[in-house]
């Protein structure tokens, strides 16, 4: 398993940040390379919510299924996913001077076939780190402006 993490301060109330970030419907809007989350069920966010995801990295589709395994509003969400990339996404939020400190931690392991189709581990690690940083930047742009 490899791990990447990043955090950012968003000048919005913690509840608003949590509600946007925790919904799988909003994933493609702020997560780079995540093309779509489909078959989201049930509609209501919470533990047990499942969905299918499709990433596109350098023209190669990665697919899999995900499930929300921990849901503690407005501070923490954990999503476990399996498929071409097995990963656990942990979103942690805390109040910070009138705003919200949002942190993302991703533990991931790419299936060997998917890995071979794209690049080596060092490149993937850089891409994953860039993804966590960019997703938080995007979140800030969406919620603050």
């Amino acid at each position, binding site marked *: 398993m490899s791990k990447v993490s990043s955090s950012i301060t968003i000048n919005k109330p913690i509840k608003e940040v949590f509600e946007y970030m925790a919904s799988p419907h909003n994933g*493609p809007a702020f997560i780079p390379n995540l093309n779509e989350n489909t078959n989201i069920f049930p509609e209501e966010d919470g533990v047990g919510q499942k969905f299918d995801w499709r990433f596109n990295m350098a*023209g190669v589709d990665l697919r899999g299924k995900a499930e929300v395994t921990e849901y503690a509003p407005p501070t923490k969400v954990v999503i476990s996913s399996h498929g071409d990339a097995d990963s656990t996404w942990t979103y942690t939020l805390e109040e910070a001077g009138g705003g919200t400190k949002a942190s993302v931690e991703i533990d991931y392991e790419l299936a060997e076939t998917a890995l071979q189709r794209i690049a080596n581990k060092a490149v993937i690690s850089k891409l994953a780190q860039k993804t966590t940083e960019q997703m938080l930047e995007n979140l800030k*742009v969406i919620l603050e402006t």
Partner: protein
Amino acid sequence: MWTFYTALVLFVLLTAYFFVFPLSKKRPVLVKHGGFVAYGIVVAMTLYPLIEVRPFLTVIAVVAIFLLFFKLWLVYGVTETMISDALVKAASATRAPIEKLDGGYKIDNGLKVRLRNIVGKVHIISFKKGDGSKKAKLTKVVFKKFIQNYFV
């Protein structure tokens, strides 16, 4: 001669990347302006040894420069309604204000997006920056994803 073979290899790779891969997965083709210019140059380099087509190479070069200057996307495989829906959905996802204009939309009070149907399911999407905000740029990225999520 090596220039011709290099161009030929690039032509095959770019054709696969822009057209064959998406269509083989029944997804729409979407080529951005930079991709057009690269493809145009490679096509011109590949065809240059054929003396009969040299006059057409000038046309290809002019079209490539035109596409680079006007920031256009070529989309094949979806209807105009689907493209409009993708843009409205993208603006909603990024919480960007969207205003309907004649033949297009204005995103986040700045970026103008024009949709033009060329023929059948072939479209040109053009972007004219007013005040291109970060949110407008992000909406453009999400718009591209949503178009590519459709099936042909």
